[in-house]
């Protein structure tokens, strides 16, 4: 095997494709669905936070603020991720013929991306649930196009 290692180092190389027509691309709505669920989970966790007394001591406030910051960050990141994943499907995966079959596709994408932004701004379980539902609709369309 050492000889092989030497040979492989000495030879010039060229590209061979381990190839997939979708350029290395992996199109799957699952990432967006997961991100949407994460948003809801983070909103719930933020809403569950309760102080031990109505005017908690400074140390406890620090902990709560720190916790909220962390949860909010994950919420924002995943809302952004969800938006990005959906936009990738929209721009790279879906084709004109899909749009003919599913004329509401543009609207669905528009709605999801708007909901992503809204979920960044708000802490609202209703909006987060709406996002999950809307993403699921796009996932359904995606599944239909795979048949």
């Amino acid at each position, binding site marked *: *095997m050492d000889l*092989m*290692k030497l*040979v*492989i180092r000495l*030879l*010039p*190389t*060229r*590209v*061979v*494709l*381990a*190839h*997939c*027509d*979708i350029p*290395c691309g*992996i199109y799957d709505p699952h990432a967006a669905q997961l991100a949407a669920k994460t948003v809801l989970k983070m909103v719930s966790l933020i809403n569950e936070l309760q102080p031990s007394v109505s005017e908690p001591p400074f140390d406890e406030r620090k902990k709560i603020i720190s916790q909220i910051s962390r949860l909010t960050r994950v919420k924002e990141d995943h809302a952004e991720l969800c938006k990005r994943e959906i936009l990738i499907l929209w721009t790279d995966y879906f084709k004109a013929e899909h749009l003919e079959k599913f004329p509401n596709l543009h609207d669905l994408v528009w709605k999801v991306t708007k909901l992503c932004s809204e979920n960044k701004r708000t802490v609202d379980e209703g909006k987060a649930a709406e996002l999950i539902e809307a993403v699921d609709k796009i996932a359904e369309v995606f599944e239909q196009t795979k048949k």
Partner: protein
Amino acid sequence: MNIFPIQRFTIHGNSMFPTLRSGQDVLCFNWAYIFSKPKKGDMVIVQSAKFKVQSEIVKRIQKVEGNKVYLIGDNARYSTDSRNFGLIDQSEIIGKVIFVR
């Protein structure tokens, strides 16, 4: 038939993941099928007019049917292979992957 017995290739793409990762180098034995026949399980480098791409591709032989082979990627879900382009003539096989770095 290539006059050089051995050729080096650099993998691009994920259809043979995890066996081959993008960026890895392999050695292809161009004379592998002079005295023996391609067989099921061989990892081969192929060039065919049937491909949408100009470049050679690397896949694994899943079936041998007469003098044609049916190719499939190890990472079948993310692979464009005989399921798309059908059987490939044995004469279109460049060689067999004999070493992966």
